């Protein structure tokens, strides 16, 4: 058992140590404007935590992230369900959803900027646009495989419309929507940082921007480190949600 644990975690730990060492050594032998050693980054990180700035900016970013993602889920999931229930609607709209899913939404940021200016609402719109189409697209892809027979059987057992939604449409479509939600989490993160970079500067995006403008490379790496942790954590969350709902599909 113990041996197993060693075999399992030794390469992992070792590679973390090697990575940290490479960063430290690389940082010491290059100009401070390019790369600062890990130790300095951690010192800077601690300063940012101590001053409360990091917590404040992270919370501000997370508020943007969750409002945008929440709106996307609130719009995307019901719309996806409707597309599953009414195939005619789905056939009319699936092409356009696919096109919007494949279009890089970042390209719309300059338009949003000149129309809505600065503030919280345009940034939420950016996150929303990044997040809503993966949810819709995956739900439509799932809805395509919802067999008409399932609905016909339910109908022939005199199922009410509500019972049909509750027992057939929702259980069938939700797992696909959750796959969409996982993708949406990744895209919403990109949208969050893009909004904070290119619209009014707030949150972790602002932390990065000010650090790079002040040539505070330590602060820059500290902020990126926080975003990496945030990104990995949120992706894990997304995968956990997807697996939870996808149990029957496997």
């Amino acid at each position: 058992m113990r041996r197993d644990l060693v075999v399992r975690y030794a390469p992992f730990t070792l590679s973390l140590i090697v990575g940290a060492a490479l960063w430290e050594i690389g940082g010491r032998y290059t100009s401070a404007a390019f790369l600062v050693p890990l130790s300095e980054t951690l010192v800077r990180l601690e300063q940012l935590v101590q001053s409360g700035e990091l917590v404040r900016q992270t919370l501000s970013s997370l508020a943007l992230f969750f409002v945008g993602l929440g709106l996307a889920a609130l719009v995307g999931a019901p719309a996806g369900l409707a597309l599953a229930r009414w195939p005619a609607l789905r056939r009319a709209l699936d092409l356009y959803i696919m096109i919007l899913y494949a279009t890089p939404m970042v390209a719309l940021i300059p338009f949003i900027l000149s129309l809505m200016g600065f503030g919280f609402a345009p940034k939420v719109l950016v996150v929303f646009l990044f997040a809503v189409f993966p949810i819709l697209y995956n739900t439509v892809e799932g809805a395509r495989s919802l067999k008409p027979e399932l609905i016909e059987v339910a109908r022939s057992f005199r199922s009410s419309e509500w019972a049909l939604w509750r027992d057939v449409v929702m259980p069938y479509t939700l797992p696909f929507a959750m796959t969409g939600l996982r993708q949406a989490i990744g895209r919403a993160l990109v949208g969050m940082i893009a909004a904070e970079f290119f619209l009014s500067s707030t949150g972790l995006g602002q932390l990065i921007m000010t650090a790079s403008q002040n040539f505070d490379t330590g602060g820059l790496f500290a902020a990126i480190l926080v975003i990496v942790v945030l990104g990995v954590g949120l992706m894990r969350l997304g995968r956990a949600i997807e697996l939870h709902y996808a149990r029957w599909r496997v």
Partner: protein
Amino acid sequence: MTDAALAPDRPTMLPRLYAGAAIVVLWELVVRGFAPSYVATPFGIAMALPRVLADATFLKATAITLGAVAEGLVIALAIGTVLGLLIGRSLVADRALRHYVNACYAVPMIVVLPLVSLWFGYTGAARLATIVFAASFSIAVNVADGARAVPRDYLEVAHSFRSSEGRALFEIVLPASMPYFLAGLRLAAGRALIAAVVAEFFTAIPGLGYFILYNSRVFRHNDAFVAVLLLGGFGVGFDALVNYATRRYLPWYRRADGDN
């Protein structure tokens, strides 16, 4: 898909056309009724289309951006395939490298922009670096999945015929992980396009992203939107191309969710 499943899909062109017309009319009416006059409308875009398509700066911007995306994708293919094969076929590499690759994949790629512009300056090299960073890891993750999913029997047969490791790699592992590779490439192309546009926003170097930024700032939204349409077209076109290639050249492959 069976023929029975395809048949009811055939008369779908008509509803699609109606829906498309409804979207266009709604867009035109809403913008005319409620938005400032510079906002893009379908009619305005159609009017701007011939002018923009004949515009030398636009054509040059398109060539630059697409060239950078293609160059970045080639580099990312090399990096991603090597990383992916390593992680997929070697347990040690998997344990040592996978969390780095996953972290790089999960992090929103645009956070590297300030860093690469610090390293490479406000130049095309910064854009290229962003594209490579954005594209490499989705390929690596997918190739790793593919290399791991190679049926053990294939490799056992190869070994029992005394095939060398190298031949097994090139003649069994690589072809067998082809569908995963293509799925990764599709993801990577989308991410590379986003990376190029974002890098141009950030560094203000010439390209389609900068074309959009500049024209929307001088309130020529119709012109700028032509570039957005073009980007969307590339996104959709590449998706369609990869789907077609998968169906045409890898007909033995069925995605796990049965939709292909």
